[in-house]
Each structure stands twice: as C-alpha cells, then as structure tokens.
C-alpha cells in the first residue's frame, strides 16, 4: 500500500512482560500466633508447570511473607525483601520488627508504581507487643493490618468463607456469649485446611500441595501444634518467636 494507509491498521506484536501463575494464599492472625498458608501449584493457562513451587517464605523468626500473582515478579520481590532485611540485620544487629517490614514492603511496591510487581502480598507474623498480625497489600503498596485475608486465584471463593468463620459475619451470638475475637490455633488450622480443600475442589489453578506456616509468639506453648502430622520447626535463634511449617497434600487433578 504505497499511500501508507496501512498505518491505520498497525499489526504489531507487543511483548507482554507479565503472566499469571495461579494459586492462592491466605493468612489468619490469632491472639499470640499467626498462620500463613499457600498452595504449591504453579500454572500458566491450562498447563501445570510444577506441583511444587513455594509461595510462602520465612523472612525472619517472626515474619512470614506469602506472594501470589506473576511468579517471576514474586520471586524477585521476595529476594529483594530478604536482601533488605539482611542489610537491616547487619546495620542494627537485630531482626526488623513486623510493622517495619510491612512499611518496607509498601515502599518497595510503590517504588515500582509505573511498572508494578504484579503480585499480591500477605505478610504474617508477631508484632513487638507479642500479638499475632496479618498485613495485606495490593500490587502498588496499599496496605492494611487485618485479622485475616485471602488472595489469589481463589480469593473470591475463600474470603467470604473466612468472613463467616473468622469474623462470624451473619451469625448472631447467643445471649451473654459474645463471639470470640481470636480463635484457638487448632480451629484456625482446621479452617485453613477446609478453605484450601474447598478451593481445590472448585478452582482448577489451586491444588497439588499446601504449606501452612505458623508463627508463635515468644513464650507461647505449642498448644494446637502437637499431634499435627509432619510439623517442622524453622526457627533459627533460641530465644524469641518461633516459626513452624506444616506440609499437606492437596488433590492433583
């Protein structure tokens, strides 16, 4: 077309620097513990890339980070957060407090405001006052401290279930028996497992394996963890908060 009229039909193949790798994460805060969980399937479209790609990472003995969305961004983001925490350790000879990690994550995410990390972050752990905490973020750094949060492919399946079971939404308390503000650890673990088995049943991008991280406040007993099959402790230093991981199978179809 010599007149250049084809210019109105540009047919360029633009490179898309993003992808979606499925999976779901969630976190629930207790009075003196925090539970952070994620499935281990990584997929692209209808293909399962691997049945074991962790989305939940221990940052310190009191902080655990779950990342979900574009896996390459997620892994790079976790790598950079860990690097910043190491620098902090070298400068201050202690681990960064949880709320400071939360603010660090917001800053790091917002720094990429115009080429964002395509990742939803949930940070769980123990605050300096010994309370269990969950912070959730959007990809560009908006964040909030909450009692529970689900994110990822099955967020819309899991979050309303959590509203009902954690916040007791739509349930009226019996007279003189108000709903508990925090649930015991064993109840929280059951709710986490039920959430993921439910999501696995109805969402194709969720399944294969489940990793549940449990952070216990300094001095708390392991009540609720004893008797759970396959618990593994990941704590690095003696005194202080403790981190555990529980690994479970999920359906692989």
């Amino acid at each position, binding site marked *: 077309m010599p007149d250049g009229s084809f*210019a109105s039909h540009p047919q360029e193949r633009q*490179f898309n*620097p993003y992808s979606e790798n499925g999976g779901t994460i969630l976190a629930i805060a207790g009075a003196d513990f925090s539970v952070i969980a994620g499935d281990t399937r990584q997929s692209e479209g209808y293909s399962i890339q*691997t049945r*074991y790609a962790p989305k939940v990472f221990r940052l310190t003995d009191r902080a655990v980070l779950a990342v979900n969305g574009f896996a*390459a961004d997620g892994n790079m983001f976790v790598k950079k957060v860990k690097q910043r925490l190491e620098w902090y350790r070298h400068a201050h000879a202690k681990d960064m407090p949880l709320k400071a990690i939360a603010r660090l994550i917001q800053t790091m995410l917002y720094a990429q405001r115009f080429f964002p990390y395509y990742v939803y972050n949930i940070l769980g752990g123990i605050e300096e006052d010994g309370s269990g905490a969950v912070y959730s973020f959007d990809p560009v750094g908006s964040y909030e401290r909450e009692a529970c949060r689900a994110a990822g492919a099955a967020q819309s399946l899991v979050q309303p279930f959590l509203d009902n079971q954690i916040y007791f939404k739509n349930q009226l308390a019996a007279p003189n028996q108000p709903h508990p503000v925090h649930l015991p650890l064993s109840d929280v673990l059951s709710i986490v497992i039920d959430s993921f088995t439910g999501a696995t049943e109805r969402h194709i991008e969720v399944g294969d394996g489940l990793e549940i991280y449990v952070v216990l406040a300094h001095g708390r007993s392991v009540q609720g963890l004893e008797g759970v099959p396959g618990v593994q402790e990941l704590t690095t230093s003696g005194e202080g908060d403790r981190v555990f991981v529980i690994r479970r199978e999920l359906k692989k179809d």
Partner: protein
Amino acid sequence: MTHITLTLCTNGQVITRIHLQKEYNELRTSVLALKFKDGIMMAADTLASYGSLARFKSIQRLQPVGSSTVIGASGDMSDFQYIQTLLDELTVEEFTAGDHHELGPAEIHEYLSRVMYARRSKMNPLWNSILVGGVKDGKSFLAYVDLLGTTYSASTLATGYGAYIALPLLRKAVEGREHELTEEEARKIMEESMKVLFYRDARSLNKFQIATVKESGVTISDPIILETAWGFAEGIRGYGAQTQ
C-alpha cells in the same frame, strides 16, 4: 516472527510509516528433560525453523556449561547464541579466578534467570525457554527459565509443544520413580517421547540428541535418527495420497 514499525517524521508530522516484518530463525521445537537414578537426561531435536521452513536441520540445541551442567534451548536462535557467549564469558571469568570452584547447575540457572528477568524488565527480552540440568555434589538439579524470567523446577520438564504432548508421558513414566529409574530406562522413555512428538509436532525433526549428566560428567550423544512408520496413514483420508 516480529513486526517492526519505522515512523518518519518532520516537525512532528508523520510523513510515512514503514512496516518491517522480520522473520527470525526460530528453535520452535521442544526440549524434554527428566531426572533418573544417577542424574538428569535432556533431549532436543536438531531443527531450526524459519517460519514454516525447516531452515537448518543440524543445529545443536543442547550445550554443556562447565563440567556438571547442560542447557537446552527453544525459541529464538540468535538470542540463544548470545546466551551461549554470555555463558562462555562467565565460565572463563570463573576459571580465571583460579579458586578451583566451578559453577554448578543451580548457579547457572540462577544466573540465567537473572539475565532473563533483567531483559524482560527492560522490555527487550531474550526470546527463549531454557531447561537447565545437572549434577553436583551428589545432588541432581533440573529447572526451567523463560523470556519472562519465570522459573520452576520439577522431576520432568518440557518446553514448547512438548509441554502439551510429551510432558504427560514423561510424568506418567517418571513421577515417583526418580530414584529407581536406570539410565537405560530413562533413555527409552526419552526416545519414545521424542517419537510421539515427531509424529504430532509439525515443526519437529526425527533427528535429535540426548544429553546425560551424571556425577562423572556431561555426555551429549551424536544425532539419533528415529525409525518411524507411516504405513497407517495409507488408509486415512487426509493423511495419504487419496484423491477424494
């Protein structure tokens, strides 16, 4: 295949736009890999296509890196050759350190994933999917990295059409048996999978190489030409030479 638009302007006015349509030599076909008892095995055919043209029929797509790693590439051929030069430079640089340390498969994969992710972040990707495999210090390693910087690891991996056609076969044969499969059994699984791929992937060749990495080192086979039988096509409408 990439489309490039050149825009010619004077005083902010667009005079003309020239559309270039450049076809690159592509390594479109699959790379397959699996873990077995003594290490890892990787296979790739020797074809580099140019669109639908089978342009180069004897290209090696499996490359040893150091003495305990092998990489296999699909995607753009020139980008792969660039990656090979990067890895050569890296190997030489590490050698000249003279500390008798050598990069193993995990380090090579980490390096590649950083390069790939950095290039995608500059919106100028290296258009490849690469498998990295090897054995070092008694531990076998197998992982994937692509143009987006996406990485993952599993006991069976495949790129391209192999991920749809061969991977289910590999998973069925390998998953849960990684520590009992012998080299001979692994080779048999590979040959069978490559045969199935050749039958169904139009951009593939029945000439391929198999790389094996064990504690003792890397071996890359000479090209293997598979015997295939097309007799069944005779009676199938659309396959054979029927006129109607």
